[in-house]
């Protein structure tokens, strides 16, 4: 049980760190928060923009995690589900490695519709998929605790878990993005904007492959 507790803790840290990781990626929106505050000439536009970006990201996480949380009816197929989920995540990573083009439809979103943009950007980059193996790992532990209760109870607990994972992740993401946006807006200035903008595309794709592989490994390893 001590090993299990440690693993659960590790998985929760993974949820938080993936949040930080998404948050520092300019592709997830912090430059928009800086831009909003400068365009509207008021400080309060910055947290407002961050909140909208967070909302979009949160919904995008849920859109991916909820379907998986409802698959507990297929409890006998847990191994297969986790294998397929892992493969999908690896597949997304490989796709992003091969297709390095940015989705053009993101450029069609009106600049003021930040929540929609954030939702679509997270979806297009597989941000939610990155959480799936971690989430399924946590579900596995939760199932052990709940034992073989009714599927209904299991599903309820998994849905609750999906909300919690998405919320914790989004909170970490928003915090990381906010730190960068506030530093640039108040102290560092716009010159730093292009300096802080690293090309994370390849790293991002590799991260998806790694997380997917972890999912496949942990499916076989039992958790």
């Amino acid at each position: 049980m001590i090993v299990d507790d440690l693993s659960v803790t590790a998985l929760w840290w993974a949820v938080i760190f993936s949040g930080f990781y998404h948050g520092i990626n300019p592709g997830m929106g912090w430059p928009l928060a800086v831009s909003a505050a400068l365009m509207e000439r008021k400080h309060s536009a910055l947290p407002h923009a961050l909140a909208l970006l967070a909302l979009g990201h949160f919904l995008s996480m849920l859109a991916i995690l909820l379907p998986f949380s409802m698959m507990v009816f297929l409890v006998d197929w847990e191994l297969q589900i986790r294998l397929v989920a892992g493969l999908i995540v690896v597949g997304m990573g490989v796709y992003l490695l091969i297709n390095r083009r940015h989705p053009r439809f993101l450029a069609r979103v009106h600049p003021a519709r930040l929540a929609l943009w954030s939702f679509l950007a997270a979806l297009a980059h597989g941000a939610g998929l990155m959480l799936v193996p971690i989430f399924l790992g946590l579900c596995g532990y939760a199932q052990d605790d709940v034992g073989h209760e009714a599927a209904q109870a299991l599903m309820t607990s998994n849905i609750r878990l999906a909300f919690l994972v998405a919320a914790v992740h989004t909170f970490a993401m928003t915090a990381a993005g906010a730190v960068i946006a506030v530093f640039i807006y108040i102290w560092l200035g716009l010159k730093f904007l292009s300096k802080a903008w690293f090309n994370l595309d390849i790293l991002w794709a590799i991260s998806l492959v790694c997380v997917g592989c972890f999912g496949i490994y942990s499916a076989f390893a039992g958790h």
Partner: protein
Amino acid sequence: MNLRPDPTFYASPKIAMQAPVENYAFTVMLSPDGSQSDGIAVVDVNPKSDTYGQIVHQVIVPYKGDEFHHFGWNACSSSLSPLTGHAFLERRYLIVPGIRSSRVYVIDVKDPLKAEIHKIIEPEEIFEKTGYSRPHTIHCGPEGIYVSTLGGGGEDGTDGPPGIFIMDCETFEVIGQYEMDRGKQDKHYDFWWNLPQDYMVSSEWGLPPQFENGVVPEDLLSNKYGHSIHFWDLRGRKNIQTIDFGENYQMALEIRPAHDPKKSYGFCGVVVDTTNLQGAIFTWWRGDDGTWQSKKVITIDPRPEDPENLPPLLQGFGAVPPLVTDIDLSLDDKYLYVACWGLGEMHQYDVSDPMNPVLAGKVEVGGIAKGANHPNGKPFVYGPQMVEISRDGKRVYWTNSLYSSWDDQFYPNDEGGQMVMANVTEDGFALDPDFYIDFPKGYRAHQIRLEGGDCSTDSFCYPSA
């Protein structure tokens, strides 16, 4: 793909002004009769260089008769828009359309001294994928490279209205038409936008039969050239409002929005008011109710002239019209430069208050029935035309050809091409006697682009303050 954004992408106009100055300029070399191939001249503009003020390299294209006019970059400061995800493009390629041939060249200028053709897009591809012809102005924006065209389909470009098409910013593939709802727009010339505020403004010259063989005097006097500007929902691709300046305001050409994306105004130059031969500048702005407004804020009077000194086209008027053919706005939105191609003058207006411009400086060189020499004593044929301002606002470059067939009508005795530069200092605005480029024999000079961006290419996504 870079790991960091190109250092010549600037978040705001202010940062662009503070960046290192240009070392090279790229200028169109145009063979007016199509006897030679057109090209791009690479000009050394670094005063510390031994070859300062000289053409140090030429990219001459394989075809003849393209008629180069305007051109632009594959990527600019708009790449820093967080919405588009193109921060890691390079400002590396010049997109150069031929307005007579409808062919588009992509020229790699990574090393300006070894600039070379990277790709040629044949006219058939443009006709087939867009239904447009005669590509003209280039801007890099959301979804890729936007190219305005002057002609629709068919042999003479009048089968359907002209418009804008989009090219992929990495592969340079032609994607297709931009417009989803063009409203009243049936002619085209220039366009520009404000990316964060999500609006675009476009203007009108005339249809191909109205310009390709020269200005058609009957059309001009019956006010058949363009006199409206169109406002668009940029990402929605819809014409949301058309402002008609009045039919006497013939040829509403260059659109210059304020560079600072916080501002919602800009300028448009009108070549000639047919009621009095004046040149005019309109300021357009978004009113408190969200609709677009415009007002004439600058007029430039014609100069009376003895008809026998005038080209046949103007003899009946006994005057030289100013002919406002190009305007350009400095990155701090302070000075608007207005080329009076007929008068032979370059005006500098202080437009700090865009509703009340003040003439701050003036340079006289060339001109109809005047032909003022450059301060170095050498000739400057035609008049000041395509103007480009350095990012720091201290140097203003210009050339002298308008359009091959129009040059010959307004200046029937002139031939050649020059590029000159004026300094903007505390003492005023004056031509630099040491910067004068005489183009190779048989070539005229048209649009200028500056290394690292200039005042008519870069669109900014963040305000200056």
